């Protein structure tokens, strides 16, 4: 007997007919959206999980000023080795930013999206932000423009955002309760005064909600970002999710707090911890409801360049950009060709997945299931398993169950180099294995002997047999194999139902 691998949402839209989840992909994630919106985000790496394997983005750091303080941010920070929001190496003028965008777009054909995300708040720097957008909509009309904001000034700029064809806006909303807000935002600058405490949070929340509503009423796509801060807003974010969804946000992205003492942030210095992988996943699941959550966010720097999870900013510093000679017309044609091919690949990967069957052997008259399992994947993009274990700087994590394969997040690791097994190399490998805690298999294109052994000892099955295969097919195949062998810690009384056989 054969059953299709079906997505979590039973009612699938007629379009595409994809019953598999992609990698928790856009079909699954965005399937509740009208076709017009899905068309808008299908090549947007930050909004579509599927798209992020094929398309790239960049941020330009033109907006240094901020009008609020968040406890997870430190405005003194500037470090080339750190990757997180609010951090940049080089502040640009609008003219420089435009040059840089054109240079990057000419060299990275995957690039579809330009965002302004700081390092301060873009809408607290309206002249620089809108001058950059104005020039780009003229000179690089094929690039989508996005902006990310804390929301305080948003209602004042909704008209300008619409005028500049900014059809994607991200608002960071960490709370709708001012008591909680007062624990996240020490102050805001509002009507020529610095305002602190509960009053500040009240104003900020009101402005965020007003801005959200104004944008969605005008048909602008709004994503809401929330930072999960254990003990502060973790229990509150479910309510936030419901409210922003009701107001028309099309995607909610719950991100983990990043807090280390060396960042000099309030939370870092005061010892506030970030959530564990499990806590984050559990909150994301609770918030998901029928609006799927975004789980592939990499919390980029405000000057990031390239595919999500990579940063090629060093190749495009202003002194290098100034030296480049660019034929943008030719580059635009090349980009169009690449992007068309990538969309076709996406479509092709989706179709076989949709027709994928896993034979079930012992239904016994009623549906019974094996427990779900986490699988880590090494990939450089393209939606396939194509990276050496030792070259991975992050692993994508998928949850496989008899129902579907869905993407649930990523784990960052330090670069482990083969042959560097003494001293630091060993501890880096140990850290990598610790970062994969909870996963029961890791899929990569190749893997060395030493990490293989250590992974096995740690109870994680290494697997290099699915190189160049689409991720979700490989994950479901490996899941089926492991189920056949008998999953460890299997639920008592559960029978093994799945067999490999794709």
């Amino acid at each position, binding site marked *: 007997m054969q059953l299709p691998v079906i997505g979590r949402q039973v009612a699938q839209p007629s379009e595409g007919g994809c019953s598999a989840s992609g990698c928790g992909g856009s079909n699954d994630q965005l399937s509740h959206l009208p076709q017009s919106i899905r068309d808008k985000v299908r090549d947007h790496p930050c909004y579509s999980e599927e798209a992020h394997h094929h398309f790239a983005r960049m941020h330009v750091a033109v907006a*240094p*000023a901020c*009008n609020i*303080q968040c406890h997870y941010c430190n405005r*003194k920070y500037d470090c080339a080795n750190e990757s997180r929001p609010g951090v940049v190496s080089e*502040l640009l003028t609008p003219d420089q930013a435009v040059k840089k965008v054109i240079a990057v777009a000419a060299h990275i054909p995957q690039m579809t999206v330009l965002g302004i995300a700081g390092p301060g708040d873009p809408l607290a720097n309206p002249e620089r932000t809108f001058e950059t957008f104005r020039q780009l909509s003229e000179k690089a009309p094929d690039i989508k423009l996005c902006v990310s904001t804390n929301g305080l000034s948003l209602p004042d700029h909704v008209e300008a955002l619409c005028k500049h064809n900014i059809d994607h806006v991200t608002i960071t909303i960490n709370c709708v309760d001012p008591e909680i807000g007062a624990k996240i935002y020490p102050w805001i600058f509002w009507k*020529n005064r610095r305002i602190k405490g509960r009053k500040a949070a009240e104003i900020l929340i009101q402005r965020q909600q007003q801005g959200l509503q104004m944008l969605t009423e005008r048909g602008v796509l709004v994503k809401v970002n929330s930072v999960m801060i254990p003990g502060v807003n973790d229990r509150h974010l479910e309510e936030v999710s419901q409210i922003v969804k009701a107001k028309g946000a099309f995607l909610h992205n719950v991100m983990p707090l990043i807090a280390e*003492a060396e960042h000099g*942030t309030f939370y870092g210095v*005061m010892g506030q911890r970030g959530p564990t992988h499990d806590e984050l996943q559990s909150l994301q699941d609770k918030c998901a409801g029928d609006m799927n959550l975004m789980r592939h966010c990499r919390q980029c720097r405000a000057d990031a360049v390239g595919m999500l999870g990579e940063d090629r900013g060093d190749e495009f510093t202003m002194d290098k950009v100034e030296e480049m000679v660019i034929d943008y017309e030719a580059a635009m044609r090349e980009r169009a060709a690449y992007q068309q091919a990538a969309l076709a690949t996406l479509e092709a990967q989706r179709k076989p997945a949709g027709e994928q069957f896993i034979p079930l052997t012992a239904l016994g008259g009623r549906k019974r299931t094996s427990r779900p399992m986490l699988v880590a994947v090494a990939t450089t993009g393209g939606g396939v398993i194509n990276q050496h274990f030792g070259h991975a700087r992050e692993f994508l994590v998928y949850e496989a169950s008899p129902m579907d394969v869905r993407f649930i997040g990523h784990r960052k690791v330090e670069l482990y180099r083969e042959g560097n097994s003494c001293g630091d190399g060993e501890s880096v490998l140990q850290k990598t294995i610790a970062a994969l805690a909870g996963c029961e298999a890791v899929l990569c294109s190749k893997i060395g002997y030493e990490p293989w052994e250590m992974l096995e000892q740690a109870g994680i099955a290494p697997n290099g047999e699915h190189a160049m295969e689409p991720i979700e097919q490989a994950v479901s195949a490996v899941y089926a194999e492991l189920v056949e062998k008998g999953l460890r810690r299997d639920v008592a009384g559960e029978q093994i139902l799945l067999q490999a056989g794709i």
Partner: protein
Amino acid sequence: MAYQIIDSCVNCWACEPLCPSGAIHAAQPHFFIDRNRCTECDGEHAEAQCASICPIEGAILDRWGVPANPPGSLTGIPPARMRAAMAEIRSR
């Protein structure tokens, strides 16, 4: 009668557009207040605008040379806690 910006300034531009007297200029190594133009926002605003938006404690001094935003006043981190954290990081 003037405020001044000192070297802990991170050049974030927040103060510059707010100054009602046009006294603040981008400069190297950091922003600069023209003391002949600065009015401390007297008659314009209840609070000096540069000091009210500046995110960096200690970066702006008032006419007596006193930080307009003393340590801990903006971040909420008690200064002793900050010193202990920094000492701990240095000792690693």
